[in-house]
């Protein structure tokens, strides 16, 4: 009996796509699109630019697969994320946009998003989600919350955070890691996940 498509390995989906079944590529991208998107957003910090770069990444991935430049033995996500990361960094270097600074005490998760292309309903859902996430962040231990807000919303580097908080860079990184893991746990417990995202 044939394996369900959803259980196919990455290289099997790539081969299926190369054999002419476009749907295999949709499954493959569906598996990783959120992570690829996150990879870009972490660097460019702008929703619209992220969307644009994501499209470029998709085109490059398709072209490379068709040119036989995807190695069957390689893992798809790191390969695709590397393409995404490189394109995002290229964009950032070319444009040299100054990081968007936000007041860490009054950060607004929505502040950096362009809302011109979303509906009123989507906006309500997005704002509701952001409110939940803000509440979850408030539940984190002080030191974890501090570094998460400074890195993700005030856009300070880990080196800057380490200097401001008078700790080593590794300590700042460790606090950030625990903050993210705890935030994910809180979100899972609250039933907030990527499944609640907008399309």
């Amino acid at each position, binding site marked *: 009996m044939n394996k369900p498509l959803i259980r196919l390995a990455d290289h099997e989906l790539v081969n299926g796509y190369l054999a002419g079944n476009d749907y295999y590529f949709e499954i493959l991208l569906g598996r990783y699109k959120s992570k690829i998107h996150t990879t870009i957003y972490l660097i460019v910090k702008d929703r619209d630019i992220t969307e644009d770069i994501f499209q470029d990444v998709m085109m490059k991935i398709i072209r490379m697969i068709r040119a036989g430049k995807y190695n069957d033995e390689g893992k798809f996500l790191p390969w695709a994320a590397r393409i995404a990361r490189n394109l995002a*960094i290229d964009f*950032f270097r070319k444009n040299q946009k100054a990081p968007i600074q936000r007041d860490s005490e009054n950060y607004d998760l929505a502040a950096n998003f362009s809302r011109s292309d979303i509906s009123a309903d989507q906006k309500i859902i997005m704002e509701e989600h952001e409110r939940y996430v803000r509440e979850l962040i408030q539940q984190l231990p002080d030191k974890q919350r501090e570094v998460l807000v400074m890195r993700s919303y005030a856009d300070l580097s880990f080196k800057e955070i380490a200097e401001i908080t008078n700790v080593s860079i590794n300590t700042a990184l460790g606090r950030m*890691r625990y903050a*993210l893991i705890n*935030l994910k746990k809180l979100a899972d417990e609250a039933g907030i996940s990527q499944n609640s995202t*907008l*399309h």
Partner: protein
Amino acid sequence: MRLESHKTQPFTDEDVLRYLYAEMNEEESQDFELALEQNENLNERYEEMLDCLAILSPSVAEPKEKQWTFTAFFLPEAKTAPHILFSPCTQAGFAF
């Protein structure tokens, strides 16, 4: 900034974050990417962090479904798929 020599030492969880936030230099990033391909455990930790980060702004982390789906068929060399007829760009007047 290079915290340690990764040619002799494994990447740490903290390194995963530095990579994701683009705070590694080019050489170190390349080492990390190579390690990602070779080290299943590192790959799992990398994916775990990406999952956690997506919680912060999933509305951003999730691309528009129709947009990325369409892209797969937008390339000139792409084969025409039946559902392309219902894609947003086709509806917007793109000719194929």
